């Protein structure tokens, strides 16, 4: 009960901050769009090639933009000694992590939705016959990325130098990338027989990393 309260308070605070600063749609989305444009330049105007690579590009652009979001989320936490306050407060630190992850998942959900619209417009990616499954895939992928990013994002504001977040997060996120990209590809081409497996994999990843993150987050705060 207390855990849920703490997580909710943290998530609500982060989302209120997001609503005021408009960082996701104001800064992360333009970044993702720029990247998509660059991918377009790199691949050329071949329509078929673009449609075929679109799911991968969507997740890559979204993920790199998301890395910046995680950093930003903890920058706000470190400003004005807020982190010390959080450290001293007698709450379950795992709950703080869950709250951060939940808020990040909501932000990433908005980011990926907007990025997907951009991809659909630029590269002609079809939505496919089952938008519900597509939404589910996106949600699960986003939760997996948030679980990792909210864990290691903390390290970008502690330490002597800023941690190279992509080096930590990207290799660990390999399963999310593969599963989400494959599922998105299949859903957009209309074949759904493999999708259940990929979604299962995403669920397993999310569960494993939310649980691990909940258990170990307090150790990252240790002085």
């Amino acid at each position: 009960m207390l855990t849920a309260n703490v997580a909710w308070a943290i998530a609500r605070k982060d989302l209120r901050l997001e609503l005021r600063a408009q960082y996701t749609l104001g800064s992360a989305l333009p970044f993702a769009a720029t990247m998509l444009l660059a991918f377009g330049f790199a691949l050329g105007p071949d329509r078929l090639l673009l449609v075929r690579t679109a799911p991968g590009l969507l997740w890559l652009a979204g993920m790199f933009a998301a890395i910046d979001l995680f950093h930003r989320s903890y920058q706000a936490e470190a400003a004005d000694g807020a982190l010390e306050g959080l450290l001293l407060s007698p709450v379950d630190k795992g709950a703080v992590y869950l709250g951060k992850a939940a808020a990040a998942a909501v932000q990433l959900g908005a980011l990926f939705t907007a990025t997907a619209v951009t991809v659909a417009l630029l590269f002609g990616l079809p939505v496919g016959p089952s938008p519900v499954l597509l939404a589910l895939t996106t949600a699960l992928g986003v939760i997996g990325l948030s679980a990792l990013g909210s864990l290691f994002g903390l390290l970008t504001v502690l330490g002597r130098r800023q941690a190279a977040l992509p080096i930590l997060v990207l290799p660990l996120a390999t399963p999310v990338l593969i599963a989400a990209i494959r599922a998105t590809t299949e859903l957009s081409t209309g074949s759904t027989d493999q999708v259940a497996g990929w979604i299962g994999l995403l669920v397993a990843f999310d569960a494993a990393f939310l649980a691990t993150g909940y258990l170990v987050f307090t150790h990252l705060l240790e002085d």
Partner: protein
Amino acid sequence: MKLLNTLLIKAGSDGAQRLLGWATLVGLFTTGVLGLLVVPPDAAQGDVQRLMYVHVPAAWLAFTSFGVVFVTSIAYLRTGRIRWDRIAVASAEIGVLFCVLTLFLGALWGRPVWGTWWTWDPRLTTTVVLLLIYVGYLSLRRIADSPSRRAHWSAVVGVVGFVDVPIVHMSVVWWRSLHQEATVVRPGAPTMESGMLFTLLFAFLAFSVAYGYLMAVRLRVGRLEDHAATSVMSQASPRPRRPVSVRTAAAADGGENRG
């Protein structure tokens, strides 16, 4: 874990270390002689298959090292004893070395047999992801601002990274099975000729001894480096813990100029 601890303490003594060093040297040299000169070439692949006697033990060692990192990371998080952190980082470093070696030897082997340096085979892909995770582990250690933080952070990565490995492998296997390529013929253990099997087992043993030896040396270096870092910090602090003699102060000056 207790066993590992006592083993490492034993391996840390001077005599044991020298003995291990010689055993490593003899073991690796014998592996080379056996693999290159004694064992007959493989019927299907010819002489290239000799690379197996170093490639497979190296891979096994890399995976074992990362397993050790996982176990000792958990031990560190539970007990907070710096000793576990030292073992974890030593094992991670050696694991990265052997992981790079594995990939390099695999490429050397793959080029004549498969006709390519690299293929997106599940095992290869998992190995390269694994390597990147532990390179991240080592790079994270450079940015922490205190030894305790460094130990906690890297222990977290040691745990999270190893939890990730089965999921990575599952996803990669599945990803590749969607567009099946010709099945790679690898020398399988069951049909292996007894001389080859003996050489491989000997190589496993020799590499494991090498791991033990490198661990013992690396642990000693880790202690020395930590000690050096502590001395630097106590010298740099404004209030030294004990009165500074003229000689120590001069030495400290020299040290600071040096550093």
